[in-house]
């Protein structure tokens, strides 16, 4: 199907079903139940799942395939955001030109950065990309204020020209749309105690993510993708066989930069503003984390990692002392207090601590991420089954000999 092998097509369909049914899957608990705080089916969060999914898929094309660890990918996301918001301010609130320009701008920007950074590899490459990203961040905050809005960032204003759209009536708010479909418009479906939210913006972003996912599968399975994997396993040997790896790595870098630009453009499409903080190096660190957590070099891993981290960020940081006490109220007081005191530093404001610990644990014990984890569990089961089957046969075979 669509030029994919059977397993890949199944994976794509699986992801498509997951994303299309997300409003149901992410809201498994009735609204008034105690577990409702674990629901993640509201538009803002679902949009973030798929947008960061795109970002991580793109990062994975660079890091997962070639092994080049970029610490500055947030710069491309930021550049894409700025491009998109400018398109909205100048041309139209329709998201198509905004997203198209954000991909182009991020692509050109990553071409420039990649052309320079890819002259070096390993740790030097990481530091170069980090330096470029920090430089863009610093510039966006200070000198480039006329273009980036500095600390306040950019939002659509009534004074914007918006050549294609008619001028706003006083008091009217400019809304990002796709040929009239408002990105923020939401249908709520109520079934018994449950509530499911369907948001136009989410579905637009989700379809974009499916496209991005499809392209990434094609890249992984193409000769180009194989070449990138060869770069990861042994770049020197490729050099000895007379292959220049630079064009391949540069192409991968630009592609992943364009993915970041798409993510940035979508962010603006969902929430019409852009700021420099999106380019900060912690944002670059976050996408690295998503990719690693899910499993670098796997197709599905980055999407899972992005979803998991964004989910945890939302849910864990919402938990406060009161909720914790509620959980442990069934225990004897002293024991309950003990658990609350122990867990409290890790939730709420302490979410970053949990994130850091999770990151370390994954890198230490599970360098392949969640995907490798499930594979290990799976193979442990299947090998045990094989051993069981082989056991009696072997026992029978011996006496006959």
């Amino acid at each position, binding site marked *: 199907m669509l030029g994919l092998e059977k397993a890949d097509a199944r994976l794509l369909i699986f992801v498509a079903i997951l994303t299309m049914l997300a409003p149901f899957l992410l809201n498994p608990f009735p609204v008034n139940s105690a577990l409702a705080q674990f629901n993640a089916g509201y538009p803002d969060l679902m949009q973030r799942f798929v947008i960061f999914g795109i970002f991580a898929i793109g990062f994975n094309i660079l*890091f997962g395939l070639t*092994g080049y*660890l970029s610490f500055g990918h947030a710069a491309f996301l930021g550049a894409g955001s700025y491009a998109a918001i400018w398109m909205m301010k100048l041309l139209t609130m329709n998201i198509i030109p905004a997203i198209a320009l954000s991909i182009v701008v991020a692509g050109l920007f990553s071409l420039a950065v990649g052309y*320079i950074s890819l*002259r*070096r*590899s*390993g*740790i*030097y490459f*990481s*530091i*170069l990309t*980090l*330096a*470029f990203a*920090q*430089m863009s961040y*610093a*510039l966006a*905050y*200070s*000198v*480039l204020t006329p273009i980036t809005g500095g600390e306040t960032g950019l939002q659509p204003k009534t004074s914007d020209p918006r050549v294609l759209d008619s001028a706003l009536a006083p008091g009217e708010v400019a809304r990002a749309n796709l040929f009239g479909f408002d990105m923020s418009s939401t249908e709520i479906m109520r079934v018994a105690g449950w509530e499911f939210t369907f948001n136009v913006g989410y579905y637009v972003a989700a379809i974009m993510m499916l496209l991005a996912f499809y392209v990434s599968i094609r890249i992984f399975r193409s000769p180009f993708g194989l070449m990138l994997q060869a770069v990861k396993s042994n770049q020197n040997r490729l050099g000895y066989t007379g292959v220049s790896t630079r064009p391949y790595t540069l192409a991968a870098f630009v592609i992943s930069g364009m993915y970041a630009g798409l993510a940035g453009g979508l962010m603006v499409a969902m929430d019409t503003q852009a700021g420099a903080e999106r380019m900060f*190096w912690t944002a670059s*660190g976050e996408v*690295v984390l998503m990719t*690693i957590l899910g499993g670098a070099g796997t197709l599905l891993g980055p999407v899972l990692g992005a979803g998991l981290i964004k989910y945890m960020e939302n849910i864990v940081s919402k938990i406060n002392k009161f909720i914790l006490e509620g959980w442990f109220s069934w225990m004897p007081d002293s024991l309950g207090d003990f658990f609350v005191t122990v867990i409290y*530093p890790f939730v709420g404001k*302490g979410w*970053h*601590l949990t*994130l*850091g*610990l999770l*990151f*370390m644990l994954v*890198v*230490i014990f599970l*360098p392949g991420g969640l995907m490798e984890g499930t594979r290990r569990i799976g193979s442990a089961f299947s090998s045990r089954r094989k051993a069981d089957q082989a056991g009696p046969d072997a026992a029978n075979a011996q006496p006959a000999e």
Partner: protein
Amino acid sequence: MEAIILQVLNGLDKGSAYALIALGLTLIFGTLGVVNFAHGALFMIGAFCAVTLSRLLTLSYSVVDETRTDFLGNPLKVDVPYIQDLVGEATAGVIIDWSVPIAILVTIPIMMLIGVLMERGLIRHFYKRPHADQILVTFGLAIVLQEIIKYFYGANPIPTPAPAAFAGSFDFGAMIGFDPNVIIYPYWRLVYFLFACLILGGVFAFLQFTTFGMVVRAGMADRETVGVLGINIDRRFTIMFGLAAAVAGLAGVMYAPINSPNYHMGMDFLVLSFVVVVVGGMGSLVGAVLAGFMLGILESFASMRDVLYYLPGINQVILYLVAIIVLLTRPRGLMGRAGVMED
């Protein structure tokens, strides 16, 4: 001329901090071959050692002083530090005032211990793993350390004053024959610079003139051969990691009065220290130190008003620009050795 001297002086204190952190980073690169993204966190922990000590020293109970009254006419409550009961009022005052320099004594063993624990407990398992994994795990560790500090000390910067004797500034220009009031320089920054020179000198002397240092240098050049000669090079490298941690911690302790410590100061410095290491040349100790001072001074020149007039924002990006130019023209850095981190 005055302006130039002033900018050089201004660059020295930041340059000293860069040099000290970069020295530690390079020591770890050179000996263990590990890229330590948690080194900035060590710098930060050092600064918080100073904060902790000054808090411990001022830990006090309150007594009611019947002889004096507050503005409502009630007897005045006076906070008496516990330490005052131990050593008397005058000595206690001096000790509290000098808490930052005293913190140096406490910091060295603490940081050595943290460094050794880090190497034995975590980094040791990553020698055989790819550099990307080393970067990632130390990056995670940095987040964790940072968040632990944030949990205990809050997110706001904590002012930690220098001893009263070094508070304020002096007229450096007048001392060397310029007009008075042209080159004013705070005492503590001078102290910081001298302190940094002392530490740098100490580390280089240790490596150059002791048997231990000689073995370590030999190990940096060829680890395998030194091991074959029957020397336990791993143990020495662990100690060097502790030493590097202590250097970063000391840089942090003394930096506390210059810039009130907050939980993310380590990361701010780390990114720039990496730039310093890269410019200086991965694996070259002298290069790291020289590049540290050089970039510190360069940064202060770039923040001059006249320069900013022609090149707005240059002070924000100058270090990164220099790093990019150096990496592209002299890929090994200014004084880098061949074959370090080039795979």
